[in-house]
Every structure is written in structure tokens, then in C-alpha cells.
């Protein structure tokens, strides 16, 4: 069935309207971040709430930096102090999240430019272009939200990608991507890493507004993954012609009915460390 470009355009317009509404909500949420950050700096922190967070994240940072020979005794003590560690860890978690978003944006743009991604026949081709455009926009919104959280908590914005994942995962993988299926599976994996990282931070950060930001984004990354897994299932079934919004349900392979949500629970086994993408 050929894609109805007019309908697709209308859908995109509707989606943009929804997006604008969501951004208004987000701006209100970001205002909350500012207020929460100010309140926290004014009144101190609830150490009971952050005990577990402190013991794990501060140790991680201290050992990591000490291991690299970057900390003297005095600085080690400073990093180990609850107030410093609490504020620092939240900022670093936000910066790491921004770095993951920057990485996702770069990967989507780079992957979309691959020759075989530009030769996908319609309706799949148009659908993929629309998905990439929208998804990059959403990751940009996420990056801005995390950077706003980082700066509002006293840190600086992270405008670089997660270098560890870039060097150890993305750079080696890009030359091995031989077709759309490889690209879709790879993107789905990155979305999983993002979703799991944010879930881990929902249970770890101490700043409530930052936690709320993580919580409002992790599910969206998991939705990106769901759609990518659905597309992968169709490609694997040789049904590229069904890659579209509103596919004819009676033509879908049975496996497409469950491909998008393989697990009952989102896990954290692929979450990235909170300090990995912090501004150096």
C-alpha cells in the first residue's frame, strides 16, 4: 500500500502540536528544577534519602579519580564529603544523560546518511526519514532538559557525546553496519542503553526534579526502542513494504505483534555509570 504523504504530513503536524504542548509542560518542569535546586541549596539535603546514593556514587567517583592519580588526599576527602558528593553526583548524572543524548543524535544523523539508508523504497523510506527526524528532535529536547537540570544544579552543560560509548561501541560498530536491519538493531540497542541508564538514575539521584526528568524520558526512549524492534521484525520477515504508520494489520507477521516489547520489566544491566559522561 503506497504511503499517503498528505496523511503523513497531517500526522507530523499533529505530532508537532503535541510536541509543542509537551515542551510547554517541560518548561514548567524545568522551572521546577530551578526552584528545587535553589531550595535544596538553601536548605541543605536529606542525608537519609541519599545514604545509599552517597555510598555508591561517591565511592565510584573517588576511586575512579584516585585511580587515575588525579586526586590528592585533601581532594579525596572533599569528594567524599556528603554535601559535595551529593551535589556533584546529581550534576554528573545529568551531564552523562546529556552526553548519551548527544551521542544518540550523532548516531541517528550519521546512520541516516549511509547510502543504503537513503535508498529504502517507499513507503518504508519516507517512514524511516520521518522517524529519524522526529526522534532526533526528541533526543534534542531530552539533551536540553538534562543540560538545563545540570546547569540549574550548579554544573555546566554537556555538549559532547559519551566518549566511552562512542569509542568502545559506536566507532567500532559503524563500519560493520551493512544494511537497514543492522542500523535499526544498533539504534535499538542505543535506545535501550539510554532507557536503562535513566531508570538507574531514577533510583539513584537525590534531587527530586532531576529524578522527575529522568522518569519522564526513560519511557520515551523505550518507545523508540519498541518501534525500532518492530521495524527490525518486519525487515527480518522480508516485509519492508509494511514499514509504515498504520500498516495493514492483516498482513503483519504474527511475530510483529510482540517484537516491540520483549521483556515485562525494564532492567538496568546495561545502564552506563553516572559519571561516565560528566564534563571533565
Amino acid at each position: 500500500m503506497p504511503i499517503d504523504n498528505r496523511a503523513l504530513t497531517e500526522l507530523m503536524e499533529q505530532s508537532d502540536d503535541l510536541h509543542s504542548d509537551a515542551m510547554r509542560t517541560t518548561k514548567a518542569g524545568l522551572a521546577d528544577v530551578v526552584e528545587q535546586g535553589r531550595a535544596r541549596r538553601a536548605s541543605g539535603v536529606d542525608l537519609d534519602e541519599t545514604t545509599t546514593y552517597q555510598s555508591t556514587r561517591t565511592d565510584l567517583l573517588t576511586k575512579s579519580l584516585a585511580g587515575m592519580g588525579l586526586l590528592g588526599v585533601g581532594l579525596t576527602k572533599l569528594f567524599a564529603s556528603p554535601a559535595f558528593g551529593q551535589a556533584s553526583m546529581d550534576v554528573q548524572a545529568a551531564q552523562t544523560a546529556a552526553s548519551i543524548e548527544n551521542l544518540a543524535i550523532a548516531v541517528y544523523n550519521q546512520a541516516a546518511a549511509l547510502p543504503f539508508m537513503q535508498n529504502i523504497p517507499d513507503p518504508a523510506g519516507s517512514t524511516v526519514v520521518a522517524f529519524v527526524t522526529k526522534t532526533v528532535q526528541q533526543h534534542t529536547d531530552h539533551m536540553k532538559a538534562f543540560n538545563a537540570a545540570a546547569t540549574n544544579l550548579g554544573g555546566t552543560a554537556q555538549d559532547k557525546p559519551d566518549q566511552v560509548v562512542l569509542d568502545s561501541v559506536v566507532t567500532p560498530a559503524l563500519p560493520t553496519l551493512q544494511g537497514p536491519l543492522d542500523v535499526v538493531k544498533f539504534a535499538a540497542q542505543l535506545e535501550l542503553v539510554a532507557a536503562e541508564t535513566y531508570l538507574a538514575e531514577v533510583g539513584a539521584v537525590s534531587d527530586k526534579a532531576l529524578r522527575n526528568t529522568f522518569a519522564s524520558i526513560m519511557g520515551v526512549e523505550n518507545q523508540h526502542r519498541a518501534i525500532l524492534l518492530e521495524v527490525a521484525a518486519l525487515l527480518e520477515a522480508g516485509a519492508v513494504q509494511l514499514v509504515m504508520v498504520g500498516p495493514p494489520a492483516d498482513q503483519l507477521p504474527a511475530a510483529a505483534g510482540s517484537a516491540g516489547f520483549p521483556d515485562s520489566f525494564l532492567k538496568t544491566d546495561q545502564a552506563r555509570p553516572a559519571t561516565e559522561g560528566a564534563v571533565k
Partner: protein
Amino acid sequence: MQISEAQLSSLTQDLDDMHRATLPKMQEAIAELRSDEGASRRTFLFGAAGLTAGALVVVACGSDNNASNRASGGIVTPSSSSSSSGGSGGGLTGDLAVAALAASLENLAVQTYQAGLDAAAQGKLGMVPPAIATFATTVQMQHKDHAAAWNSILTGAGKPAVTGVDKTVQDAVVTPALANVHNVVDLAKLALQLEDVAAATYLNGIQNVLQDVAGIKVSGSIQPVEMQHSAVLHLVLGDYPIPDSFAKVDGARTPTDTIG
């Protein structure tokens, strides 16, 4: 291509087998969450000296009436503004009241998908594509897992498991809608409503209600899965599957809902 009752039964059996194979992993996850609870000072607040269900609504909604309306999804019931006696979480308080609400929403989803599967098997929905049957059976099993997770927390705290459904949502949304479900598109639209309500309720729990990190983690591990269900339903229904950059709490239910 239409699916027969025999094919549906076979498919359900296959998926049930797959589901059972994943149960040990789920139990491990719950055990891990429980151990987290044990390490948390907040565990003492988990259903002990916590707020009443009615008070939780006040905390969740504050003085923002608009937020209150958003959180109730526009469903107006006598219990929506009543005290804790309006809720039916068995007199539970604090995070345990949220766990009971969550279990009841999951039970409602399981029940609704079962009603759809029964109607499909009886030929009442016309042609049921295999992918739609797979979707319904898989999602139903995942909702069973979610209900089991919440009930595990309840029973772990010495409380009875919730076997009932969220009657407030059932009476206001599901029962009227089921009466008008004549095909899989109608069913998908109803399912989408329930998935969105569940996802919003979990997000609201994380952002505004839950106090214990264990409860936050359980909600956090389930909310993204409900959002996946929602995205796939949007896609099949012809809507852009991921309309928003940020998840919302619109339509979230509160512990004042009646469970029965």
C-alpha cells in the same frame, strides 16, 4: 487472514510456555527489589507510618486543581475527592496503597485483554489478524507479571494480594467501551486508553507519590513497558507512535479509586 480458535489456543499455549520461561528472571528481579527495600531506611515508612491514601492524593495533587483533574483522567467519581475510606486498598497506607492501586490496574488490563481474546475466539470481532492476537496474548502476560510484582510487594509486607480490579476505571471506561467493541480496532482503542492510564499512574507515582526507593524502582521498571505497549498500539491504529518528547501524568489514577 483470520485466526481460528484453535490457532489462538495454540498461540496462547506457545506464549504461555515462553512466559513461564521468563518467570525465574522476574522473580530474581523482585527479590533484588526486596533486598533493596531491606537496605532502605524508608522501608519503615512503606505502609507503616506513611500517609493515608486520602492524604496521598493531597500530596500528589497539592493545591493545583488542574493537576488534580489531569491526574484523575477526567473520570469523576464520588471517591475522587473523598478521604481514605473512599479508596479500597484494604485500608492500606503510604506506598502500599499505591501498590494495591497498581495491582488493581494491572488486573483490570489482564481482564480486559481476556475479554477481547474471548470475543475474538467467539468470532465477535470479525477478522483477527495473527499479529493482533499475538499482541493481546503477550501484553496480557506482561500485565500478569506486573500484577505479580506489585502483589509480591504487598504479600512481602504481610498484606493480602490484590485480586480485584480498579472498579472506578472499570465502571467509567472499560464496561461502557466493551459494550461497543465490535472489531479489533475498537479493542485496540480501549487497550490504548488502559495502557496510557497505567503509564501515567506509574509516572505520577514516581514523580509525586511514592516515598520508598523500592516502590520507585518497581514503577520505573514497568512504566517504560506500558509505554511500549502504547507506542505499538498507536502505530497499528495509524497514529504517530511516539507523539511526545516527555511522558505525562495525564489520566493517572490515585489510591482513592475503588478496588473490587
